[in-house]
């Protein structure tokens, strides 16, 4: 590496150069280490959140998969896992359909009050969750939506919408409108042109928007705290009470599984982004 540096470099230059590298490395470690620490801790045989001396000595006796067994046998955890997926998928579908259609409208060059409406559609991402949750609690009570799946799905869909709007709008900004015009000009109905031309081209953006909406719901806990009854407890809600009431290491096992989920999501979104870039690249 040193040979690549320009010959006129002084000691100060070197210090700057390696100082920057060191800082960057330390920051990357700060980002990653707290997450990596979770994984070995989840195999702790003892019911604690810390490394036992046996674990540090790499004694096999100090490791166990009992916390993993617990989450798949404890009814509260299995219900929470089911709920998280069910609510997340339903909310993401609702947000994706409504958000994609709206993003197509927003992309139109004649859309009235575009700036104001965009700001409004993005606002669920900006308003503090505690305010959203409190407001929904007051309002949904009147319609008997508190402690129901419907109430939570609606609430989470509203929170996921901004992510769909942002990702689909980004995909649409590279969309060549003349393709749609050509299809309509050749006799396709606007609906057919939309489904056969627009949708396939923006699909990567739509799917990653939907994934963001799913993650938003999957990770959300404040609204769940206010709106959910005991039957609607989700994974984060179960973790929250686990961390608050008595620290139980099965949370670490769940956390490790969630890290795997986030790796899978990260890979998927990256593949979608590449695909979207490729599709856009092919147009020009």
């Amino acid at each position, binding site marked *: 590496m040193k040979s690549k540096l320009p010959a006129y470099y002084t000691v100060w230059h070197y210090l700057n150069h390696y100082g920057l590298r060191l800082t*960057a490395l330390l920051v990357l470690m700060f980002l990653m280490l707290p997450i990596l620490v979770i994984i070995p801790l989840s195999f702790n045989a003892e019911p604690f959140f*810390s490394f036992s001396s046996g674990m540090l000595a790499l004694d096999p006796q100090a490791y166990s998969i009992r916390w993993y067994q617990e989450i798949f046998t404890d009814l509260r955890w299995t219900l929470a896992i089911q709920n998280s997926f069910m609510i997340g998928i339903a909310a993401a579908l609702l947000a994706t359909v*409504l958000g994609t259609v709206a993003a197509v*409208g927003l992309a139109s060059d004649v859309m*009235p009050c575009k700036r104001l409406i965009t700001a409004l559609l993005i606002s669920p991402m900006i308003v*503090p969750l505690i305010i959203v949750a*409190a407001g929904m609690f007051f309002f949904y009570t009147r319609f008997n939506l508190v402690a129901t799946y419907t109430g939570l799905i609606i609430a989470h869909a509203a929170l996921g919408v901004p992510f769909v709007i942002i990702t689909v709008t980004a995909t649409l900004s590279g969309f060549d409108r003349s393709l749609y015009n050509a299809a309509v000009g050749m006799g396709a109905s606007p609906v057919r042109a939309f489904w056969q031309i627009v949708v396939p081209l923006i699909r990567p953006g739509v799917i990653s928007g939907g994934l963001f909406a799913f993650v938003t719901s*999957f990770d959300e806990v404040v609204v769940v705290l*206010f709106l959910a009854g005991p039957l609607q407890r989700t994974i984060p809600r179960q973790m929250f009470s686990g961390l*608050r009431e008595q620290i139980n290491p099965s949370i670490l096992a769940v956390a490790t599984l969630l890290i795997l989920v986030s790796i899978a999501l990260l890979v998927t979104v990256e593949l979608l982004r590449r695909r979207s870039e490729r599709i856009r690249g092919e147009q020009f």
Partner: protein
Amino acid sequence: MSAQSSLSPQDRRAALRALRQRKLVAFLFVAPLLVFLFLSFVAPIASMLFRSVYEPTVAELIPETLDAMSDWDGEELPDERIMNQFALELKKLANDRTSGRLAGEVNRSLPGTSSVIQSTARRLRAVDDAELSQSGAELLMKANKRWGDVEIWRTIESTGQPYSFTNYLTALDLEQARDGSIQARDGPKIYVDLYTKTLRIALTITLLTLLLGYPLSYFLASLRDSTANLLLVFVLLPFWTSLLVRTTSWIAMLQSGGVVNSILIGLGVINEPLELLYTEFATVIAMTHILLPFMILPLYSVMKGIDPSFMRAAMSMGAKPWAAFLRIYLPMSLPGLSAGALLVFIISVGYYITPALVGGTDGQMISNLIAFHMQQSNNWGLAAALGSILLAVILLLYWTYDRFVGTKSLSFG
């Protein structure tokens, strides 16, 4: 203009009609989502804002008394007619088992009155209506001598107003004096102090993310794309990892037998474990970790667009590296810097979960107090007022963000 004037009036009308139609179609695409968001999101928040100024409970419980009080001057004790009326209504509440609600509402404005109202209500329960309308005032005085205190009547009258700004005054540590003037409340400024603390914590987090995020983004932007993309995974993975996972990991890191304390003891830096968890420090460090990607991603995307030859040009013309950085690179990276900083600040001001889990009593922010008034003290009006002030702060920041940065720069992944 010339193109327009060459059109015939019919053509112009047709063109305008076509334009209107296209506008309508565009709007129809957005309409379903607008309706949905209005019902699921905007209306709930609006109803919460409304609740902060509208508190009809007392007005619904004792309407006749409040009616009778309308010409009372509030200087001396109310006359017998008002007191009799109140005794009648209090008896009715006692029999409907709703006197506790009245007691709770009045007690909130004048602590210590809950027991006065409750015990009096119990004694009036069996008294005949006719007797109450004759000598209700006497019976009240006999039940509790506090009814001879004009303050309690004034409080009943003021809590009986369905619309009031009392919650906002409380939320700003103010109170309204008898003559209507607004003054600071005695005692510590609980709420103003908490707002200040929230803003201070948010600012600290923003500065820390900037301090950590800027060099890393700068470094990533200087790398080849393939290397940078590889290292970006270390930024994106935490970004995608559940908030509760990361909060959990900070509990494991900071607790007294946790990783940080074990390392410090192992290195011989300290002998006793430090109290790191359940402090303001824990809130700040965990939130810095959680929000750091929100700083790095916009910074990196702006820095990637800065041509490195500008810096080289400045240096080849004799600028010292630091001067070149400060005068060329830093100004060019400002859009990313302001986007990241505003984003982190906006998100951290309203944070709830992390302070609730790792903050202890020190590291609580305004959201935690709102949740407390919602769930534990059941003072929903005050919670709504505190929430409205927080919302106003956030909207102001968002407006600034939208004006200077634009929501277009928000991107994820």
